[in-house]
């Protein structure tokens, strides 16, 4: 889901950077001292998620985990995701420094959707499961959509790449839906405080 350097038009790069820096600055201002360890852990989780590859046919896909991160961290997900993306770009060449703003925007805005879904009050256990599944499924879907739109906005040449980017991420949407559903259910049972720690 990382957009590499040298692909996007400058106006998109600048736009993405300005928005991401502004929201990250706001998130940093809002960040409380006691929340820092949790944000750090989720930053590490997001970073490591990219290394968990799942083979699909001739290619492989990797986890994104922006749903569960967003559900728990809210706007602070911008800090976690931004730092993890910066290190992925610098150390592994996934994405890059110039595309950091756009990539952060594409990953972290859907994380806010996860936060909103997480705070919908649901009593029924089946609906709860669907809600947790959506926390994983919808942010990845939105990220893939935003990634494809970003590519498509750069001209007709990138439209085929935009289609491939969306289609190849479809299995991730389902996988993340199930992983998030199990992860939140598990956290709810063993460590419910973590789900309530950030408001």
């Amino acid at each position, binding site marked *: 889901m990382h957009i590499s350097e040298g692909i996007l038009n400058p106006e998109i790069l600048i736009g993405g950077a300005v928005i991401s820096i502004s929201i990250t600055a706001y998130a940093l201002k809002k*960040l409380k001292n006691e929340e820092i360890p949790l*944000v*750090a852990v989720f*930053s*590490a989780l997001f970073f*490591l998620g990219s290394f968990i590859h799942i083979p699909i046919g001739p290619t492989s896909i990797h986890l994104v985990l922006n749903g569960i991160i967003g559900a728990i961290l809210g706007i602070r997900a911008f800090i976690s995701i931004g730092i993890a993306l910066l290190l992925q770009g610098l*150390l592994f060449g996934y994405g890059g420094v110039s595309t950091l703003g756009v990539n952060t925007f594409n990953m972290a805005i859907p994380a806010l959707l996860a936060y909103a879904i997480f705070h919908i009050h649901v009593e029924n256990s089946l609906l709860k499961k669907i809600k947790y599944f959506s926390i994983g499924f919808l942010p990845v879907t939105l990220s893939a959509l935003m990634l494809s739109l970003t590519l498509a906005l750069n001209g007709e040449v990138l439209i085929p790449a935009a289609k491939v980017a969306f289609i190849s991420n479809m299995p991730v949407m389902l996988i993340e839906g199930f992983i998030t559903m199990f992860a939140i259910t598990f956290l709810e049972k063993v460590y419910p405080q973590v789900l309530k720690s950030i408001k």
Partner: protein
Amino acid sequence: MRVLFLVILMLNFLYAHKLYILGDDDGKTLHIKSYFTKSSFCQDCQVEILDVDKKILFKGKTDKKGEIYFPFIAKKIYIDVVASMGHKNRVFYESENEMISEDKNESYVKILLALGIIALIFFVLRFIKK
């Protein structure tokens, strides 16, 4: 005597135009050298690396010394070399070396480094926030 001379000459001619292929690897890189005689290298010759199912893995052209390098990704391969004037040869190459994933260890170090940097960033952030 004349016949024997002609046979030797013919054999020498055939020998001189036989295309030799030498393969070697260190577990990371496959090195191929192709030549007609010790002093006549197969320059700018088309080289194809095929897997055991004869599917092309890599293609390339030799340099002035008749050499070319490819990433080593399969232990059993066919090496096809095609020179000008229709000279060509195919050899089966089987390596005894284990494939070395050079990046694996490096990646682990980078991952640990990144996790350390993440911890450091947030440690500094915590310090600033105090």
